[in-house]
């Protein structure tokens, strides 16, 4: 059951810079996964409720209470670049 994958697009969406050899390799691996998924999709599922989660649990909530935050200096120390109390990021080309 061959599955058509635009592997270059998948890489672009994940912001991965892959060379041709890598693209070919990942393409093969993704194909195996998708072929398996396609096989699963042939199962008769009429009358079966969609399962988004395997756990038999719902409503795992927390109380609306404030907990301690991280220290700002510790947080900003992880940033590639900072400007004062802010993270500095390169020019953004467009709104999402």
């Amino acid at each position, binding site marked *: 059951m061959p599955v058509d994958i635009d592997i270059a697009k998948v890489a672009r969406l994940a912001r991965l810079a892959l060379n041709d050899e890598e693209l070919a390799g990942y393409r093969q691996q993704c194909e195996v996964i998708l072929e398996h998924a396609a096989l699963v999709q042939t199962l008769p599922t009429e009358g079966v409720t969609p399962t*988004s989660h395997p756990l038999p649990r719902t*409503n795992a909530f*927390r109380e*609306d209470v*404030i907990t301690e935050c991280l220290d700002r200096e510790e947080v900003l120390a992880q940033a590639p670049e900072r*400007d004062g109390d802010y993270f500095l990021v390169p020019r953004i080309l467009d709104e999402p």
Partner: protein
Amino acid sequence: MGYEPVIGIETHVELTTNSKMFCGCPADFGAPPNTNTCPVCLGLPGALPVVNGTAVEYAMIIGLGLNCEVAPRSIFARKNYFYPDMPKNYQISQYDQPLCVNGHLDVETGAGTHRIGITRVHMEEDTGKSTHVGEGGRIQAASHSLIDFNRAGVPLMEIVSEPDIRSAEQARAFVTELRAAVLRLGVSDAKLEEGSMRFDGNISLRLEGSEAFGTKVEVKNMNSIRSLQRALEYEIERQTALLEAGEPVVQETRHWDEEAGTTSGMRSKEEAFDYRYFPEPDLVPVAVDHQWRARVADSLPELPAQARGRYIEMGLDGPVATVISRDIEYGSVFEAAVAAGGDPQTVANWLTGEVTALVRRTDLSLAAGPIDGASLAELSAMVSDGRLSASAAKDVLAGVAAGEGPPAAVAEQRDLIQVSDTAALEPVVDEVLAANTDAIQKLRDGDDKVIGFLIGQVMRATGGKADPGAVTELIRSKAG
């Protein structure tokens, strides 16, 4: 044949919970940059989100307030995209199974009542806030951007309307009513200037009478209700001109420029966004049973539309009732004044007229200020028993607002009490009639217009303090 606008609005509302949607960081506005963060809202590897139960309940309150059905089961989804103000590189949102669907909001305009469908109300998390550094803060001209993650993860509700809106004016009325409803529901402060309420518009045109939709344009970056209306008006003009010239409307996102008063297409994307939504594996479904739904539904406060109906039954005309019902403070002052015996329409007229002007002119706050239900009721009584003229009442109101004391004291101090006592007015009326025998003759001959002139003379003689009603009666009885 003309074109008909087809408009839908997407509104985002931040909730006023104590903590964020999926972590315990404070959700408040205005903290020093990057102080309200933790591994969850910074998207650090291995951190796991946990849903804020209060946020779910607030979302349900909004949904039920907008007449939605609450889904018995709903799930969160990951919306994948890369943007520097979103540290996880995905936003936790809801997609194909949102919490609330199929609602509506009734909206009043001068043309009547319009029912605007609400497609869905779903839960998601806000992003961080970026400040673009460089020319005029504009994104395209920026050299770099600064990010504050305090807002990242704040509970955000997306309210999507059906494309049921047919004019920029209706769109304005819709968001005004929606904001009033959210404020009444008490789950968001809905401040446009702080961004806790924001909206985007989708607009297309079609030939009047046509059922098919035209090409849709999304308009963003409107920071006030007024700019939303202006942006839509501009788009209607722009798209009409294109269609009339036989040119196509391009499906795109356009940016509203407040200063220029125009919209412009944003840089065309190399690749259309492909969000690759999938169920959020870190969060289990939300299940709302009948009891939970019923408890929330029973606790809903009165909504603006319901208050409006009640005010109309109390005798207010529609437009004034709409204005009062949309503002919690006006509503409570109005109701207190009427409960204390004030005449509903008189009190409402002051609130929407003089008091509104005073609030705009000065820094008068209704919540804290001296203008309250009791003072408006007292003022209303003074007008109805003739102690104050309608125009003097406005002076008294200004005095009360300025802190000069309660209405009766202000009226005394400003010497505005009307004379309606017949014994006091009679000598003045006699004098005026004696000096104007021609006019009396005309009145006797049936020329009723002349009475206005005679009343004016008495008013002048008393320095405007005579009660026109009492004067009219006196003149008629004497001329009779």
